[in-house]
């Protein structure tokens, strides 16, 4: 039976704002996922899941809240009866269009909320703008407070640019002062429609490590329970006797369905990548193909084999493989031009830097000892 980890569903490619670094190339497309596509998702995907599967099902890859609540009520009515009890529905939003009706729906449906906020106002407003070019931070923060007042505590995703890394105290203060307890740091990546990254010119790994280490130190010193996802994920691996699970390199651990029914797997970002050799990573269409046809498609098999080769390169050549599991295929494709490749900026900034920051932090607290000398709270990692 099929036990996916992550299902990304795109109600619409359209987004109501226009961030400078957005990787979504079709964000002007106002197409809406049709009832027929929702029916096919139910019949061909959800019905194939094991009863004990526990996927996260995320409305994403456009701005989901521009779609009326009534559309989701209809979709949930169709999908819920065949959804495993351990599944979690979530929505990833920019927070612009969160209304009272949306808050009521989110509470009633038990849908979790991920919210994109790039930290303090000057960092957020520098790039997250309306389609008219005006800043969005004030409106997003107002809606964050409405959600919090409604008993919903969003998980925040913050996209960092190079200049962000020199202001860790400001970022930490922002999360603490706004009662944000769970944050995930993405990086400004050259991926999809975003062709360049602020990290292209220089290696940002040391700066990213220092940024994360400083935030950990500040939060720990003040007793503010800030969960940084990239670091908590690695901490969990180091404390459990389990292999690193990288769902982006495991066939059909991830499935993403676009509004038009196109299906991809591995990296959800594949929806946005163009590669004629891989049919733009479209492994079929849910309206036309059943699950077995998607799994059996030649383009899927070839993609899976190329990803496997890339993972083996990571396994033999990277000291962080134990906490990574083989990198991000979409980043390998975007940055290296091949799935059969190794290190990317994502590896350095989103895996290696958090791992180093965690080890440095634990060494600084005396929980781990590196080499023959114990490290005090002010020391840095030395081998």
């Amino acid at each position, binding site marked *: 039976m099929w036990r996916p980890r992550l299902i990304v569903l795109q109600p619409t490619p359209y987004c109501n704002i226009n961030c400078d670094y957005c990787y979504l190339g079709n964000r002007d497309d106002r197409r809406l996922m049709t009832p027929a596509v929702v029916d096919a998702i139910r019949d061909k995907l959800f019905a194939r899941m094991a009863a004990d599967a526990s996927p996260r099902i995320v409305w994403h890859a456009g701005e989901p809240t521009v779609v009326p609540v009534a559309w989701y009520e209809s979709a949930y009515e169709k999908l819920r009866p065949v959804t495993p009890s351990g599944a979690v529905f979530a929505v990833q939003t920019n927070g612009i269009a969160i209304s009272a009706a949306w808050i009521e729906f989110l509470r009633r449906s038990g849908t979790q909320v991920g919210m994109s906020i790039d930290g303090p106002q000057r960092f957020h407003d520098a790039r997250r703008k309306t389609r008219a070019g005006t800043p969005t931070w004030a409106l997003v923060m107002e809606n964050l407070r409405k959600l919090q007042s409604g008993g919903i505590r969003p998980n925040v995703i913050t996209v960092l640019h190079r200049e962000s890394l020199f202001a860790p105290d400001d970022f930490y203060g922002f999360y603490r002062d706004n009662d944000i307890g769970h944050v995930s740091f993405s990086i400004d990546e050259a991926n999809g429609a975003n062709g360049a990254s602020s990290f292209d010119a220089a290696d940002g790994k040391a700066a990213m490590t220092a940024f994360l280490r400083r935030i950990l130190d500040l939060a720990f010193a003040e007793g503010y329970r800030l969960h940084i996802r990239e670091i908590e994920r690695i901490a969990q691996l180091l404390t459990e006797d389990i292999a690193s699970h990288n769902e982006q390199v495991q066939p059909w651990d991830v499935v993403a369905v676009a509004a038009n029914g196109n299906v991809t797997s591995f990296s959800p970002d594949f929806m946005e990548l163009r590669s004629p050799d891989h049919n733009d990573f479209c492994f079929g269409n849910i309206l036309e193909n059943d699950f077995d046809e998607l799994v059996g498609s030649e383009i899927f098999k070839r993609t899976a084999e190329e990803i496997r080769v890339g993972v083996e390169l990571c396994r033999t050549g990277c000291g962080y493989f*134990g906490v990574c599991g083989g990198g991000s295929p979409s980043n390998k494709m975007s940055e290296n031009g091949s799935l059969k490749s190794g290190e990317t900026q994502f590896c350095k900034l989103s895996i290696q830097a958090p791992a180093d920051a965690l080890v440095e932090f634990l060494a600084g607290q*005396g929980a781990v000892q590196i080499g023959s000398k114990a490290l005090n709270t002010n020391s840095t990692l030395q081998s």
Partner: protein
Amino acid sequence: MLRGIIEMLDMKAVPLTFALALSAAAPNAATAAVGDPSELLRSGSLRNLVRPNEAVTGDKSGEVSDDQGAKRQMAQGCWYGYWRRC
């Protein structure tokens, strides 16, 4: 059992990272000693640091059962998933 402890910490909103750091201050604290930082970057390398820590949880009684832990894990979905855009 270990998973139960971890889940207990998480349910009390204590980042696991902080629990590991606090373990160093506990009586008879365990320390992971390695020659090189890379030795830590593998599954289970810090198992010995995780313990019910009164300083963290304020709770001497209990661990969460494996069953409860598993349910909690399911409820979290891919909270500690690899893809970072959700």
